[in-house]
């Protein structure tokens, strides 16, 4: 792939606060997304530490049950909507225009709006957390991130702030997704056909399409919740002819694709990282695109496997079971593609590659527990135990967060112009994944033994494993301070990075991002390059 016109420096960056508040630049907005995600990750992480401190021993340690439930609710909401999704959008903002040879995102002002809605939503969410501690603030939100009625209809004022926070987060996701889709469909440089695009762009395309479809449904669902709470409707109340399970259907029609919204950006990063450090092109590009389309379609029609125990008709549960198990086909295809890319490659093991390999292993593990949970009779036993908690943390930390870490390490040299400290990176990797496995692997066993989730106390028979899990969590949690240090150190200086800091990147499925200098100029490609 070669290009003619290279980027020309047009305008410098505007200076001062205005540069950030009024930004229309995809790199600045991408940076703001990533910083916001990092702040939210530490906030949600602090809540997780509180949860594990509480569960360190049986009995009540540091908080009351309703506060515990509020903290686990907000841990989930903050991590999903505040950390993982904005971080993925941040990567997309930074990389898509550079990869596709565009001057910026397609709709730059809208881009800024979709970012700034996030801090507003965070403010509403934090208000809902503070309210229970104020006089007259009402009961805390104790429903878990799923917000099931009737509990959510009965909750205090905090629930209304949570509902509006979800509205703003949804609006931000929809606007951001529209921007990503239009950028990919309309802003590609001449010659950059869809089938030449880096796999990361394909993954972000399907992520964005999923959000455009499912985020409005969640908005509709929580709006009905708001009306049931305050305007006398009976959507989720059987006494008025409604049905609480209706909310579960609406929520999981959003909630299940949401899992893929978090997973696909990580798959996209892996499709860039693994070829680079295996020094081989991505195995089965077309098959992977097909697999993505398959996964995209399936994810929209399997939602009720989260609700096996609420009493749907046997026909419905059977359908959802079979379709859920079918998901292992496209996911297996992705794993196979990654393994075959590595096969006989000249592999080296820099931090992004270490993450990539660990993700392939640990995410496959989550896939296996996922098949166990997909089977209706088995799920009847696993439902709402720590087995489920272990399963989805194995899916969402390797399948989303670690993929984002891999992406940050992979692209940091491009963004900053400096190499990060490889030695510290490796230390962080091992510290991080040992802590992670120590936290969540034992939870499979207490789950199988019957320890229920979302409850502040537990039977003394689970004490040892929970203490182990908590120790693991503290190891895992503190490791992220090193991550912060590595990132700051890399921004401030370090070994100079070339235009293509990873010599193996040439072999991968690259776009035009490596044609630009490191760090890239303020505006990426003012004149579109021509891809031959």
């Amino acid at each position, binding site marked *: 792939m070669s290009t003619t016109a290279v980027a020309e420096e047009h305008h410098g960056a505007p200076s001062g606060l205005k540069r950030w508040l009024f930004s229309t630049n995809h790199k600045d907005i991408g940076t703001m997304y990533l910083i916001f995600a990092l702040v939210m990750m530490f906030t949600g992480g602090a809540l997780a530490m509180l949860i594990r401190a509480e569960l360190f021993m049986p009995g009540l340690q540091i908080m009351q049950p309703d506060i515990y439930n509020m903290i686990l609710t907000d841990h989930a909401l903050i991590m999903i909507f505040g950390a993982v999704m904005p971080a993925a959008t941040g990567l997309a903002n930074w990389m898509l225009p550079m990869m596709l040879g565009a001057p910026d995102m397609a709709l730059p002002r809208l881009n*800024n709006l979709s970012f700034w809605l996030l801090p507003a939503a965070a403010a509403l969410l934090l208000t809902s957390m503070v309210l229970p501690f104020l006089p007259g603030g009402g009961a805390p939100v104790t429903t878990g991130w799923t917000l099931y009625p009737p509990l959510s209809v009965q909750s205090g004022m905090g629930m209304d702030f949570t509902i509006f926070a979800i509205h703003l987060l949804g609006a931000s996701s929809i606007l951001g997704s529209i921007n990503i889709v239009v950028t990919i469909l309309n802003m590609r440089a001449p010659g950059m056909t869809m089938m030449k695009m880096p796999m990361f762009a394909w993954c972000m395309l399907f992520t964005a399409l999923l959000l455009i479809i499912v985020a409005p449904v969640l908005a509709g669902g929580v709006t*009905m919740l708001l009306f049931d709470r305050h305007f006398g409707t009976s959507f989720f109340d059987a006494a008025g*002819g409604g049905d609480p399970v209706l909310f579960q259907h609406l929520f999981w029609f959003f909630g299940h694709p949401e899992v893929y919204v978090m997973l696909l950006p990580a798959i996209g990063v892996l499709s860039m990282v693994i070829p680079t450090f295996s020094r081989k092109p991505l195995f089965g590009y077309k098959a992977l695109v097909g697999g993505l389309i398959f996964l995209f379609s399936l994810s929209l029609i399997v939602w009720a496997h989260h609700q096996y125990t609420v009493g749907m008709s046997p026909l419905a549960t059977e359908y959802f079971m079979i379709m859920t198990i079918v998901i292992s086909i496209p996911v297996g295809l992705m794993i196979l593609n990654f393994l075959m890319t590595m096969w006989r490659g000249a592999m080296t093991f820099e931090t992004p590659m270490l993450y990539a390999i660990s993700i392939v292993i640990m995410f496959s593990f989550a896939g296996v527990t996922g098949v166990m949970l997909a089977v209706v009779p088995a799920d009847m036993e696993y439902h709402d135990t720590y087995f489920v908690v272990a399963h989805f943390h194995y899916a969402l930390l390797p399948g989303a967060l670690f993929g984002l870490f891999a992406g940050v390490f992979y692209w940091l040299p491009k963004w900053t112009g400096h190499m990060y400290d490889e030695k510290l990176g490796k230390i962080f990797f091992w510290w991080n994944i040992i802590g992670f496995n120590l936290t969540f692997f034992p939870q499979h066993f207490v789950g199988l033994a019957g320890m229920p989730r979302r409850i502040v106390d537990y039977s003394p028979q689970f004490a040892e494993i929970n203490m182990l899990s908590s120790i693991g969590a503290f190891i895992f949690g503190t490791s992220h301070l090193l991550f912060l240090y590595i990132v700051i150190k890399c921004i401030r200086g370090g070994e100079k990075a070339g235009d293509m800091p990873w010599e193996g990147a040439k072999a991968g499925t690259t776009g035009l991002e490596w044609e630009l200098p490191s760090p890239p100029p303020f505006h990426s490609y003012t004149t579109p390059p021509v891809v031959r």
Partner: protein
Amino acid sequence: MTSGDGHYYIPEGSPWPIVATLGVLLLTSGVALTVNDVGGGGLFIIIGLLTMIYLFYAWFSDVIHESMSGYYNEEVDRSFRQGMIWFIGSEVFFFMAFFGSLFYIRVISGPWLGGEGWLGLSNMLHEGFKFTWPLSIQPEDVAQAAGAPEKYMDVKEPMGAWGIPALNTLLLLSSGATVTWAHWGLKKRDNRQLVLGLILTVTLGLLFVAAQAYEYGHAYHELGLTLNSGIYGSLFFMLTGFHGFHVIIGATMLIVILLRAMKGHFSPEHHFAFEAVAWYWHFVDVVWLGLFTFVYLI
């Protein structure tokens, strides 16, 4: 970058996104405070609404100015078009949530509550309850001892399809035709036909809103059909309410387009704004057809 030098136009830094954020933050927290009877919420709502009105005026003024200065090349135009299409797509899914709920209640959970189907045993909650659509007697009533306070009201008479709803269908369908006729006028540079078509469209849209408002009054005062009258009232007002809200937004956008058309802003080659609003209007039209069929007719 400011000039129309053939490059893809990247706007200079703009204050509007952050003003929009402040506006919605004020508005949402104001509503959250007001519905919980906390003082000060009303003030938040008013300031938030005024901010949003000013914001839309200012943001669109910028866009119109840029468009009239010829900054937007074909590629920018395509971005706008695609953006609008995906936005309408997301709106479709917003309405799907409510239509889906309607189907779910009518086909699955309602009959179960009435004792049908294999899960009909939930009928023991409300013994003797029969599910009918439109649902007029609430499940809580049948099991309730005489004199207990009621949470949900009974519906005296369901909303009929013929009469005002049928007239409304006619109004909206004709408005779809008039906006297309206006588009034809625009394409053949007949500004008189364009303006007249738009005036007709706006008038028909506003007539629809007025008829709908009258119908709501009728429902509340004579039929006993309110937000509080069980799932039928909930779904009826949620679906028609959100649709009516979209009609009001659409009509407002049409008025803006009408004013711009009177100023001669549009040319046969360059009139994305007109088309975007026309698409939106047709979308609102199609939603109404779904509503008329599934909420009023059957």
